[in-house]
């Protein structure tokens, strides 16, 4: 053995003696740091929001008034009812489109198509998830806007329908891949038993697979909801950014996230408007926490129960 090789072997031995615990610690730190960051973010948002949350903010007006006039020189009003309605309506429409589409894609990919088509479809649908949200917003603003005006006769094409379609396209990949995993997790014994009893493929899917995978599929839908509620840039561009209670899918609305994005940059740091935006941020955090928690409990429910 040459001296240099000898040295290298020695080094690697020493590395494994000293390095392994170090790497172990680094990895451990990576894991725990996530918890630290989540709490740090919670703390930061709460700290910025607290002075108005326990002070001048009229919580009744905050939740029940449609008047969002944060910078009024006459009387600033902070009512988020219209913004909540905006977020809720766009999310609901997006889910109404993306849940059936995502589940359909998941069922087709996991049960009905051949292995080659499956690979191709999975790659392409997951590519949808890689498109930046600002590009989606741009598509809504430039492409979908005139199409909606032309087809529906709506006075303006950036509205709930536009935002809902864009958000649905963004949520489908999430719903599809989690839903497909849920269907994959159904043991093959179920399929074989159903087929042996003479069930058609459609009967197998609707009567055996969907009930068996329902918790996983629900979790998939909730993850899609989380994605849709938190999305900012695309809805800012595609929904019209207009403070009002919508009366139909062709009305423009404004969402909570878009309001923060559009206004936070211009507020006086530490001012009431700034702090109220942080209250909204906190509210969004609580909302997505609840959605994620629900999804988590459901998925754990699946794992907790023996499958066979």
């Amino acid at each position, binding site marked *: 053995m040459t001296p240099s090789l000898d040295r290298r072997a020695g080094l690697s031995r020493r590395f494994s003696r000293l390095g392994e615990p170090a790497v172990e610690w680094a990895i451990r730190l990576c894991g725990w740091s996530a918890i630290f960051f*989540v709490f740090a*973010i919670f703390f930061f*948002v709460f700290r910025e929001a607290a002075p108005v949350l326990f002070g001048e903010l009229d919580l009744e007006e905050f939740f029940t008034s*449609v*008047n*969002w*006039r*944060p*910078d*009024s*020189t*006459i009387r600033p009003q902070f009512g988020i009812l*219209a913004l909540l309605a905006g977020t809720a309506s766009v999310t609901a429409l997006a889910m109404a489109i993306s849940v059936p589409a995502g589940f359909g894609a998941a069922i087709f990919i996991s049960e009905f198509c051949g292995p080659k088509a499956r690979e191709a479809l999975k790659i392409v649908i997951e590519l949808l998830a890689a498109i930046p949200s600002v590009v989606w917003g741009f598509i809504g603003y430039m492409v979908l*806007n*005139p199409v909606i*005006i032309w087809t529906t*006769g*709506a*006075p*303006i*094409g*950036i509205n709930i329908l536009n935002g809902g379609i864009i958000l649905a396209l963004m949520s489908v990949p999430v719903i599809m891949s989690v839903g497909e995993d849920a269907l994959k997790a159904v043991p093959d014994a179920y399929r074989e038993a159903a087929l042996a009893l003479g069930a058609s493929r459609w009967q197998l899917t609707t009567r055996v697979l969907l009930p068996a995978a329902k918790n996983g599929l629900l979790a998939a839908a909730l993850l899609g909801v989380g994605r849709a509620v*938190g999305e*900012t840039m695309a809805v800012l561009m595609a929904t*019209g*950014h*207009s*403070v*009002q209670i919508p009366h139909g899918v062709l009305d*423009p609305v*404004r969402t909570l*996230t878009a309001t*923060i*994005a*559009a*206004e*936070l*940059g*211009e507020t*006086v*740091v530490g001012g009431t408007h700034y702090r109220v935006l*942080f209250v909204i*941020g906190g509210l*969004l*955090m609580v909302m*997505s*926490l609840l959605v994620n928690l629900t999804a988590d409990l459901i998925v754990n429910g699946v794992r907790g129960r023996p499958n066979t």
Partner: protein
Amino acid sequence: MSVTTFWIDLAASASMVMCSTACSAGKSRQPASTQASSGLVIRITGSDTMVNLVQAWAENYKTARPEVSVQVTGGGSGVGIADLINGTADIAAASREMKADEMTRAKTHNGMEPQEFTIALDALAVYVHKDNPLDSLSVEELSEIYGEGGRIQRWSQLGVKNSACKRDAIIRVGRQNSSGTYAYFREVVLGDKREYKLGSIDQSGSKDVVALVSRTPCAIGYSGMAFAAGGVKALKISKKKGGPMVSPTPDATISGSYAIARRLYLYTLGEPTGQTQAFLGWVLGLDGQKVVRDVGFVPVPVPGR
């Protein structure tokens, strides 16, 4: 949760990038400079209406003073003034006057009085889609369209048949509330006591307003006269119903016969010195004012020029 933090992260990293480039550029060029008063970088932040104008100045200033670099950022008049107060901008561009509380904050925060320079005039044009048969509006009608409790909600109420707009509804396009244009339009059209009607489509840029109106036959929108484009028509405005109808032209802006005309400002903290002073002098001089005209605004009238 991810939304809030994302924006803060973005803002923080963006400002860090900006600072680091500004600082390093300033430092690396320092030896070549004999005037070290404010470095050789001038940072201008503010009005979205003025961002094209300030950018054009920055480019033209390169031929006059190649050693000085002018960095331009938009964001809105409010942002520019906030940056000036926080010390991250040397000059704030504003399409409205500084508010009293901003003045006070600047003074208490920095101990220096902000200085105001009127550097151009601008008329706020009211745009409709090019197929809209409407030609003119009075300020009162505008107030009824945009103001809280205003009665005008359909094109037929204005006496026109807007056949391209099937449902007859007037879609109000406006700016978001950080914009100086938004504040100025409210001041002149709605007055001190009236709020905007909720439900307008709030756009983040002057150009966006015109772009959206050009694509929406039902829409009406306000934006700077410099943003006029192919698909839209600028309405004639009368101060009173039945009064003389005036188009937003440079002459009407200077004479004051156009109702919604305003001044555009640059602000500095304290009397400008060094590079900033030289730049402001150039802006107000013949070369700078020629750029004002080229971009589509109105130069500041100088008696005897």
